[in-house]
């Protein structure tokens, strides 16, 4: 996030009364990291060790162990020490987004506890729980589809046909009577994130939310493209942090 972005001065929508002035922490190179990590000694694990912790735990850091990879002589010169797998990221993002938007029971991230947190941290009056006599009502959030809109999406998914080998037969995964989508393989999630997200929720979600979801769709498509352009990647970096803030 650039320091002059308008979200940086936003006092109301993220955390109430707090303006985020800090910039992102500097990304350390492997050598610098090695210096930091080697300051902490070794830790014994197992029953004989009486629960040792590195000094400064909870204050300066929350590290509980030093990865044994640091003992490899070349580890500190690796540019990319850990490879984030887009497959799992896409799968989890898909599940979170889909289950929240479709308000799937026990899977949605917009649950009662989330609403209780909102009262503490945010200032979003239209999403707080409402006491109605002896009942507590959870008002529908703007990003959650109405029941008939959900049905429309499921019906549309039911009628989908893909080219052979493109994805598994998604229509088979829909249980219409329960209104649920079961057994998505991670590659189906990949296909959904890459192509279907903007189509599925078009005209059903409010414009701003649909825009944000579509931006995610474009982002994963660009990231997964087989031809990459260095300038384009620099742009992507900016976009990814903006999306994150947009959704937040």
């Amino acid at each position, binding site marked *: 996030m650039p320091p002059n972005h308008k979200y940086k001065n936003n006092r109301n929508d993220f955390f109430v009364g707090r303006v985020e002035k800090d910039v992102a922490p500097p990304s350390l190179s492997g050598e610098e990291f090695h210096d930091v990590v080697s300051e902490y000694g070794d830790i014994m694990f197992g029953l004989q060790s009486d629960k040792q912790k590195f000094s400064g735990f909870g204050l300066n850091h929350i590290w509980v162990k030093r990865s044994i990879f640091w003992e490899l002589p070349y580890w500190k010169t690796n540019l990319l020490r850990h490879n984030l797998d887009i497959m799992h990221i896409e799968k989890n993002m898909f599940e979170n987004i889909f289950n929240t938007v479709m308000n799937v029971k026990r899977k949605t991230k917009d649950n009662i506890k989330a609403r209780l947190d909102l009262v503490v941290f945010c200032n979003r009056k239209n999403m707080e729980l409402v006491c109605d006599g002896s009942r507590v009502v959870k008002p529908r959030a703007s990003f959650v589809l109405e029941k008939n809109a959900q049905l429309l999406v499921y019906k549309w998914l039911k009628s989908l046909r893909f080219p052979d080998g493109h994805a598994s037969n998604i229509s088979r995964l829909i249980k219409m009577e329960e209104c649920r989508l079961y057994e998505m393989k991670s590659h189906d999630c990949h296909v959904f994130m890459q192509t279907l997200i903007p189509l599925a929720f078009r005209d059903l979600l409010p414009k701003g939310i649909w825009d944000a979801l579509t931006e995610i769709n474009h982002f994963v498509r660009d990231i997964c493209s087989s031809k*990459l352009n260095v300038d384009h990647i620099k742009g992507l970096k900016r976009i990814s942090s903006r999306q994150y803030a947009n*959704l937040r």
Partner: protein
Amino acid sequence: MIFPPSFFDSMEHLPVHLPFEVKVGGPVQYRWMYPFERLDITIAM
């Protein structure tokens, strides 16, 4: 300002790092897990 804070677990943060990984490591197709996940089926059989 769409989703509530609890939506954002660590998984939603990871895409922020992806552009750097693509820059350093090249196209994702060479680094993703799909072929190995398929191989798991073969091994299990």
